[in-house]
């Protein structure tokens, strides 16, 4: 009986563990099957480096959107990552117990707030500030970066904090016993030891920024042109799918799935790079 249970539980866990593989395979197949015919027809180079997006006239170029995605994500990461890591160090090391007990639920709450609420707040609050103080239409790379940075914070903070807290106590105790200051301990011992967890958090955060759709639809302006400054409106790959999918049919729909393929590959490159870094550093 014991042995049977032992075997059974192992088998069941094994089968459950295959679910992610099948999910990823299914999603990949569907996106590629829908989108590849158009890329084949237009040509990969023309699709990716084409400057004009006008499906009704037969122009399928997504280069401005690739630039849009990269610039907004970069902006969000530039603000969000340092702030997020600071907060996780604060929670794990500096915050008094009582403060931590307020901070942590607050971060959890923020992770739960629907992204559309952030988008709405950005539209009503951030966009007018940018329009009045800095000029331009307000809907801009800057607005998108600021709001996405706030949105990815909970992800980065909670995961980084968990991985710092999960370190064995003797790491910290040993370092302190060697006469290191608290900050030196954090900087030289704890952060390097928790690196894989922090990188994981940052990747999830960036993934959220790249993949966010509704918020960027609301605050980016969605213009299909190369931005000349951070005050210009842009369109990202996700918004291209998000705002046009509803209306798309035929080749236009294929083109949006093809946009999905590019998005998919972009994220895969990101993931694989990050996974290689994580593995190397942990060795």
């Amino acid at each position, binding site marked *: 009986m014991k042995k049977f249970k032992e075997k059974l539980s192992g088998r069941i866990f094994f089968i459950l563990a295959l679910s992610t593989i099948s999910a990823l395979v299914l999603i990949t197949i569907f996106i590629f099957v829908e989108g590849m015919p158009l890329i084949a027809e237009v040509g990969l180079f023309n699709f990716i480096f084409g400057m004009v997006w006008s*499906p009704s006239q037969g122009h399928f170029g997504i280069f401005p959107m690739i630039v849009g995605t990269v610039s907004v994500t970069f902006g969000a990461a530039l603000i969000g990552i340092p702030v997020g890591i600071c907060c996780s160090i604060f929670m794990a090391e500096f915050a008094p117990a009582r403060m931590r007990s307020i901070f942590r639920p607050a971060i959890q709450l923020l992770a739960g707030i629907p992204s559309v609420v952030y988008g709405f707040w950005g539209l009503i609050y951030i966009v007018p500030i940018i329009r009045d103080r800095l000029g331009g*239409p307000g*809907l801009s790379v800057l607005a998108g970066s600021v709001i996405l940075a706030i949105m990815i914070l909970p992800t980065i903070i909670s995961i980084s904090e968990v991985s710092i807290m999960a370190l064995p106590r003797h790491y910290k105790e040993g370092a302190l016993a060697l006469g290191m200051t608290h900050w030196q301990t954090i900087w030289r011992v704890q952060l390097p030891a928790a690196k894989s967890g922090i990188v994981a958090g940052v990747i999830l955060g960036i993934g959220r920024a790249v993949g966010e759709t509704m918020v960027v639809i609301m605050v980016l*302006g969605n213009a299909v*042109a190369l931005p000349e400054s951070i005050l210009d409106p842009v369109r990202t790959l996700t918004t291209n799918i998000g705002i046009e999918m*509803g209306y*798309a*049919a035929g080749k*236009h729909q294929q083109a949006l799935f093809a946009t999905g393929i590019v998005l998919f590959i972009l994220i895969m490159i990101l993931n694989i790079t990050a996974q290689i870094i994580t593995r190397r550093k942990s060795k």
Partner: protein
Amino acid sequence: MKHYIQVGLLSVLLLSVNLLSSCMAGKAHGGLNPTTVIVAGSTSVQPYVEILVEEYRLLYPDNAVGVQGGGSSAGIRAVLNEIAEIGMSSRALNQEEKELGLWSVEIALDGLAIVVHPDNKVENLTMEQVRDIYSRKITNWSEVNGEDRKIHIISREEGSGTRSAFQDLVMGDEMIAPRAIVQNSNGAVRQLVSSDRNAIGFISLGLAEPQPGLQPVKALNLDGFSPTQENVLSGEYELYRAFLFISEDEPTGAARHFVSFVLSEEGQRILSGEGLIPAREMALTGGEGVSDEEV
């Protein structure tokens, strides 16, 4: 501890069983009761149809109608895939769609208003000026008797029924400048125009009027004619398009009942109350009027 886990596992198991049985029940229910009519498509038409459905439900509590968005083309595709009985479109069928032999009926007309911020000094534009603004030949309000400010042009997304109507009626062969800000609904365009002094946009006429709880926008006169229902009907205000219901074949049963309701005097009165212009011909097919028995 062990106790807790067992209770937990058991409750999960029970819930899953429940879930499965409710799925089965739902399936059976759906099979026995195929009267839920699904209407899907244009987000411009959707709010109006939702209001119609509410009234319809009060009159005929036994007939269920569900409304979905997605957009004009999505509605047409949903009809073809048989996900929806009726599609909503805010643009005419294109050549490709016409060849599929779809059935369609006009449920109302909707004017397109060119809107600006209420503080904007400009009151009137010509069709040509609107075209030049949207193709960025004119980029400053001073060129059309306004203040010396840059124009922020706001457009709708590629493939939107409202955009394609604007393209056909105003732009002709000119392209809307790619630098234009793109918003994906009438409401979003309205919101943006109401908060940006330099903006210009085009929205459904019914939404250009003051709305409780929303900032106002100013609808411009076009070639000297104000955008009113009367001027659209008389043909003097030239920007308008039709809202369509689309179906694979002429609808029957519950779907037909709902379409008849929309085309009935009561349905048209509701639409007109919401700022739309009643359909030009109230007929289900081949000029055959809606009989009272049908509604």
